[in-house]
């Protein structure tokens, strides 16, 4: 893998030249009005570089109609779209752009991924599975795939405005994002008008994933600055609170005794 295979989300347009110096030239632009959990988003007309639109909202009817209008005005610099909502498949099926499906917590098995690849060009494999499960998927799907490799992982998405409600209830000055924790489990919480998004507060660093044969490696740069990005790519992460997620720690499907519970 070289940095050219990384797709990175953009926080600031001014970062692009520095990212290019790092050898990264695939950029995902969070689209204003169609994202949650991301402080900096961009209007279509603000996006001048070649890149992907990044859309992680679950859309209501109004959202899907608005997006249809946006997609009708795409310029040639938009080479692809990364999205969560399955309704978008119908909107982009006739568009000559690369379609990458990022169902945040689905795409955890090879058969589902094969089925989705009948509709899109690529999928981002879930971060909720182990390294062995990822390897199995790559071996069995036998098509280009994308791996979430770096960044804060989204762990919960609510349509509600949870920070706003909290501040109103306690008559507190509004702050966003916030950090919360319970018994060693910490989360970064960010909201906008479309809902509230929780991130695990440990930065996911999946260097081992770079050894796997995938077409793209996804870097979610939210809450990271250009120096952090550079350090992560160079392996200088000692100052960061990092994690390998579930790569080596399978989640529990059934508790002992469930079979007869």
């Amino acid at each position, binding site marked *: 893998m070289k940095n050219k295979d990384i797709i990175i989300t953009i926080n600031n347009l001014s970062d692009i030249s520095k990212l290019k110096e790092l050898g990264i030239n695939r950029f995902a632009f969070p689209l204003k009005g169609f994202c949650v959990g991301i402080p900096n988003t961009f209007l279509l007309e603000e996006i001048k570089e070649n890149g992907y639109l990044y859309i992680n909202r*679950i*859309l*209501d*009817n109004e*959202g*899907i109609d608005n997006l249809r209008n946006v997609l009708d005005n795409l310029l040639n610099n938009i080479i692809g779209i990364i999205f969560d*909502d*399955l*309704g*978008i*498949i*119908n*909107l982009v099926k006739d568009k000559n752009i690369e379609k990458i499906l990022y169902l945040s*917590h*689905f795409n*955890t*098995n*090879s*058969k*589902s991924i094969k*089925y*989705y690849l009948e*509709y899109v060009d690529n999928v981002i494999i879930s971060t*909720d*599975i182990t390294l062995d*499960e990822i390897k*199995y998927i790559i071996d*069995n799907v036998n098509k280009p795939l994308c791996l979430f490799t770096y960044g804060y992982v989204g*762990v*919960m*998405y*609510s*349509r*509600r405005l*949870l920070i706003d*409600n*909290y501040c*109103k*209830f*306690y008559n*507190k000055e509004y702050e966003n994002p*916030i*950090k*919360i*924790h*319970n018994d060693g*489990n910490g*989360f970064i*919480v960010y909201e906008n008008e479309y*809902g509230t998004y*929780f991130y*695990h507060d440990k930065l996911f660093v999946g260097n081992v994933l770079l050894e796997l044969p995938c077409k793209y490696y996804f870097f979610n740069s939210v809450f990271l600055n250009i120096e952090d990005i550079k350090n992560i790519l160079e392996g200088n992460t000692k100052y960061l609170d990092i994690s390998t997620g*579930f790569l080596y720690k399978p*989640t*529990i*499907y*059934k*508790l002992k005794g*469930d079979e007869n*519970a």
Partner: protein
Amino acid sequence: MHELLAPAGDLERLKIALLYGADAVYVGGRDFSLRANAKNFSLEELDIATKFAHELKKKVYVTVNIVFHDDNLNNLDEYLNKLKEIGVDAVIVSDIVGVKKALSHNLEVILSTQASTLNYEAIKFWQNMGVNRVVLGREATREDIKKIKDITNISLECFIHGAMCTSISGKCVLSNYCTNRDSNRGGCAQICRWVFKKDNSPDFTFMSKDLNMVDYLEEMINLGINSFKVEGRMRSIYYIATVIMCYRKLIDGIINKTLTEKDKIYYAHILDRVANRDTCPQFFHKFPGVQESYFSDRVEVSNQDFLGIVLEYDAYNKLATIEQRNYFKVGDVVEFIGPNMETFTYKVTKIYNELNEEIKVARHPKMIVKLPNLDGVEKYAMMRIKVFDKESVL
């Protein structure tokens, strides 16, 4: 068809739900179901359940709604084949592999709310695949529902009562991170009901109040929603009986145009009484805010209104055999509710134990007692504390 759809965590709950007025029940098998802590149904029990429901001309839907890992797919085909043989009426699925495989077994597919479906294009995606019914995300507004129905005409299933996820369903893995249990494979530990610390600030909580759509049920019916779903496969038989009976009366009253405002208030009171948390309508009519959430520690209250269930009724001797569920004694004024009877008040004048000895108090859980001088009760009728007269709450 305005289907009232009830949860059932086991065979007893299933029978109660159907007898008390549900048109259909949804249940989990021992595998592939999102309520890993519920007792759930073996294949033999699913067979019994389906036969029981079909004899009543009612339906059984089986949840196969985990998000599959490759290891979980090994026996899926065999399982779906068994469900087809049993004759279940549909499976509720969220993962595309489950949808495709269920359709290949000629099973009816209901797309689970876990699939986070809130727009008509997403519905069309699944509809084109062969899905005939979708459970909308609980975030759907009345405008969303109307437009989806108008454009797709798909069969819609919407929640009307019960607990709410704070998250969009299917978009939460907090349990994975906090407990290592996979929330999308049945391990949800309800982290949204935990209390979190925030430095130099009051504790941060984000739990939702429960859903209650009594006030908007008529509007939901008029929107063309096909199935009205009650949440709670792990709830008690008393809760299921009470909630289902209330919504049965409400739906029938709306359809038959016999429901009065007083009736509605009365059933709302009963539903409030049986709830263990505050309830409200949530997203249907307005965007939920502070009033639709809790901001303190857990707020559940246990309900001990349920006094017993009728196991047998001897009409000739007017004697009911009852399994006790909560303490009661001679002199108590109670109520009986049942699937095919009017609710009535009864004063406990005598209690007999299993040896037909007269006792004053039924104090032991599940003890068998007999109550005399009872007119018109039936098997599966329930005895509860008399909370209020219908007239007194109006």
